[in-house]
């Protein structure tokens, strides 16, 4: 995973978690606030309903009082007293009295409990009033208003009722009247925004949808409210629930409305819509989503920018490092900026600049050292032949005084010496010239085993000993090695030089092993001896031209070997420890340089 991806994931995760946390926290706080507000509003509305009940009851009582005080009722009472309760003369009197006072219900009842006239159920005359089925004394003639189930023709209703009594001689007439508890009552309530009040009139044996009324009349869809009402009917206790409505959840409180005997005659349902809460939570949620999306986009941009600022220099640094590895030491990173990446770039540039400087200095130093070594070697090589030449020239100068015969003899001898010396000098110069003029390799398919065998064969005599101890030669050649593209002559020359070095390293004899192997696609040719081995310092300078540890060496043998191997795009490595022998390992590619794909 790249730094950019990691940064993107990290920033996105942090932003998303933060947004989710904030959203959840704010939503929970909003819910708590709304719940508290709901409870408060519900309590206010319930108190208002109780006040309205009290006001309604008071109004009913006042209206009933006015009816009781009317001449008409006094006349009815007198008529009833005279007619011993015959309702014929008064059967139609309740309706106009109720209508005049705006009452929905009015029963005129004798003190025997018989209905004389009923405004809401005119046909019920002659029957006993349900409130007076027992002793008439049980009816408080001026008691507090109360809720009562009222029988209607073919129906039943819930009423806020009151009672009054009118005396006529020794008899009394009861007035039992009230107003219907319906949508008009609910309409009188001042409902806060988002709240509603529903009254269930518990006047039927089972929960009935048509008994749910709100300010607009019968509640069209009262299905969700029915379980709550059923609970209150059963428990006679207040109940609360969340009701699922099409417009959203609604927190609903249901309060029983008891009658005179404590029976639940109605249920007040106060609903507080959670639509606002849902809208707020939705807004918070969508804001969270929007912020999250923005955060993720921001994180992407930020991660891209940061990654660009961080990884691009790093990538440039990696590219530069690879360029340095390829040998382009003067590689520079053109990265502006500050901070660690800037310091790193500056350090890299400083490093490459110093590397180039050091390389230049090293090259210069090596060049100087090489020249010195060359000069020393050249001086050494030239000094040996020059010294006999000088002595010969001196002998000739002295011989001028000798007899001619003797002089001729000395002269001939000196000429011979001078000639030999000049030939020696010419040979020295030729060797140096040969090294300077290494030919361009001519590649062809060659068999490394064959080259190795031919090279070993050249030194059969030296291996056999004679004036020195013999060397045991072992050829460990891989028969399946195949051929490689190489210049066979130069490769043979390189092997020859390595064999010569090995012979020189084993003056007391030893064991020489020539091995060929195929490693991956490359061919490895190893020459191992059991000679004196090399010190660390010798090993580090082994391939330096003109460096030698031998008395009469030119120091060009291994330099030529390295040159040949390099021309074949191969590598040469040496493993050696003092006294432990030395192993040269040449690794050559199967194809010539430039033929590789």
């Amino acid at each position: 995973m790249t730094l950019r991806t990691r940064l993107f994931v990290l920033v996105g995760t942090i932003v998303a978690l933060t947004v989710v946390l904030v959203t959840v926290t704010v939503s929970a706080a909003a819910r708590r606030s709304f719940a508290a507000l709901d409870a408060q509003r519900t309590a206010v509305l319930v108190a208002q309903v109780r006040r309205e009940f009290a006001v309604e009851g008071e109004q009913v009582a006042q209206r009933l009082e006015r009816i009781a005080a009317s001449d008409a009722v006094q006349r009815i009472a007198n008529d009833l007293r005279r007619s011993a309760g015959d309702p014929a003369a008064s059967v139609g009197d309740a309706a106009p009295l109720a209508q005049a006072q705006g009452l929905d219900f009015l029963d005129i009842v004798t003190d025997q409990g018989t209905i004389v006239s009923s405004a809401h159920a005119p046909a019920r005359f002659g029957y006993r009033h349900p409130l007076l089925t027992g002793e008439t004394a049980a009816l408080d003639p001026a008691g507090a208003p109360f809720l009562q189930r009222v029988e209607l023709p073919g129906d039943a209703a819930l009423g806020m009722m009151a009672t009054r009594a009118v005396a006529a001689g020794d008899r009394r007439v009861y007035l039992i009247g009230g107003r219907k508890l319906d949508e008009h009552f609910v309409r009188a309530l001042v409902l806060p925004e988002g709240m509603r009040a529903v009254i269930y009139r518990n006047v039927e044996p089972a929960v009935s949808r048509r008994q749910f009324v709100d300010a607009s009349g019968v509640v069209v869809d009262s299905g969700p409210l029915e379980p709550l009402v059923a609970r209150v009917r059963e428990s006679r206790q207040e109940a609360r629930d969340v009701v699922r409505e099409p417009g959203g959840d609604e927190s609903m409180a249901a309060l029983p409305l008891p009658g005179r005997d404590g029976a639940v005659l109605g249920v007040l349902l106060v609903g507080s819509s959670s639509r606002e809460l849902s809208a707020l939570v939705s807004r918070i949620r969508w804001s969270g989503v929007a912020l999250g999306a923005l955060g993720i986009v921001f994180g992407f941009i930020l991660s891209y920018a940061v990654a660009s600022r961080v990884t691009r220099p790093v990538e440039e640094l990696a590219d530069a490092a690879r360029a340095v590895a390829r040998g382009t030491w003067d590689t520079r990173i053109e990265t502006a900026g500050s901070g660690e990446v800037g310091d790193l770039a500056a350090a890299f540039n400083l490093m490459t600049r110093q590397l180039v400087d050091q390389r230049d200095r090293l090259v210069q130093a090596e060049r100087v050292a090489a020249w010195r070594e060359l000069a020393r070697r050249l001086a050494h090589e030239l000094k040996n032949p020059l010294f006999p030449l000088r002595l010969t020239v001196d002998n000739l100068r002295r011989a001028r005084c000798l007899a001619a015969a003797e002089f001729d003899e000395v002269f001939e001898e000196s000429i011979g010496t001078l000639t030999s010396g000049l030939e020696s000098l010419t040979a020295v110069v030729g060797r140096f010239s040969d090294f300077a003029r290494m030919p361009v390799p001519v590649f062809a398919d060659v068999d490394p085993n064959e080259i190795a065998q031919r090279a070993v064969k050249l030194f059969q005599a030296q291996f056999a000993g004679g004036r020195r101890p013999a060397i045991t030669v072992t050829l460990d050649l891989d028969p399946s090695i195949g051929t490689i593209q190489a210049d066979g002559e130069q490769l043979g020359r390189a092997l020859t030089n390595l064999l010569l070095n090995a012979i020189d390293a084993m003056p007391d004899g030893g064991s020489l092993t020539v091995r060929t192997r195929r490693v991956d696609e490359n061919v490895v040719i190893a020459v191992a001896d059991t000679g004196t081995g090399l010190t660390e310092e010798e090993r580090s300078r082994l391939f330096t031209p003109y460096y030698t540890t031998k008395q009469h060496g030119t120091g060009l043998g291994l330099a030529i070997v390295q040159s040949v191997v390099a021309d074949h795009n191969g590598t040469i490595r040496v493993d050696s420890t003092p006294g432990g022998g030395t192993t040269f390992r040449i690794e050559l590619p199967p194809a010539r340089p430039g033929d590789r794909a």
Partner: protein
Amino acid sequence: MKRFRFASLALASGFAAAAAVHAARPQYGGTLRVETQATLRAIDPAGDAADREGATLARRVRPLVFETLVQVDPRGGLRPLLATAWESDARGARWRFRLRSGVALHDGTPLEAWQVAASLRMTADGWTTSIDGEVIVVQPSAPRADLAWELSDARHAIVVRRSASELTGSGPFRVERLEPARLVLRAHDRYWGGRPFVDAVAIDMNRMPSAQLASIESGRAEIVDLQPADTRRVVQRGLQVAASRPLDLFVLAFEPHRAAAAHDAVRRALAGAVDRAAIASVLLQGRADAAEALLPSWLSGYSPSLVAPEFPRATRASTAAFPQEQRTLTLRVDPSDGVAKAIGDRIAVDAREAGFTVAVQVPAGLAPRPDVRLVRIALDPSSPDRTLARFAREAGARSVALATAETAPGAAAAIDGVARFERALLKDAVIVPVVHVPHLYAVSESVETWDGAVVTPTGGWNFANVWIRSKPQRE
């Protein structure tokens, strides 16, 4: 002529007594304003009314314009009208009616026997009518002992048809104009019984009961329909109440699915639950009679107990023995009949007190099939046999067939045959009489009559004898 004679006497009585007799002296002139809920679409006696109220109104209005040969005497029997005498052979196969002389039609021409015969041919299909001088001879297709009674029906009123739309009668009033909601009758100046006191009768139709009450209380009408429940209010306001004998019968008629023997006990229990006395005395303000039998005693002449079965008083305990579905009934009432609605409500209350669940159905359109209907049936105030036969027609052949397999008594049947058929109708409580109700009218205090009441015992409008007392003038 009698009214003219009275006028002469009155003039001769002198001015001194004028003030004393002012209140009782008939006065000519004025328009008698009548309001009614019913609507009359056509004045032709041969036409049928669209509804029950329309038919009742037609029975009241048409005799004012068109007269029959004979008419029912409220005291019993028949009395002459256009025919001064009538006779038949023993079998009732040939009837002779002597036409009253001097009868002028509304157009001033005299009524002739051939016109009467022609009119009867129009209304009595299959009868043979001929004239013999001033005698109209009627030969029914089959002998009929009650043909004279039949001819007392307004359907057989004598109509002289000048053209398809020009009908002329001989009644005390002629039709001045008939509009959708108003009928104006003008006094027939040459009426053989004497010119009516009022110049005209204006009948406003299709008036709601409350509007009628308001009209008479405010003086905009002299005579209006009256609901029984309003009689006390009318009396308290100083108005008069005119009533016929109980001419309408309310019955509970069970539907076929409730008429089976399996529901017999339920029907009897429901019939026993209905407090007829309370309905008659309280709900209908004592203006109605609790009905135990179909025919009122004044018409049948026998005691209701002779034909009415005994229904034990139903109680909740006894009703609880019935299956719930049998105890639950739907009672249908006529939505246009306020009295029926009130009676239906009371029956429902009585039934509920006895443990039934009765829903009163007042259908405004299509409605589910009821279990029982409350039906108002107009009784024919003529003879018991004709009344019962008409009841059978109005109640419907289906209801009668559900109640009994017996056939209705024939014409001029003996009273015991009438009683037997009535008993058969009532015995299974498929038809349960509830109450007999009269026709009630509120009459202004300014309305006086010279002969008889404003409304006859048989329900007729006695407007030819009505005069309107003018308000006393301040000196």
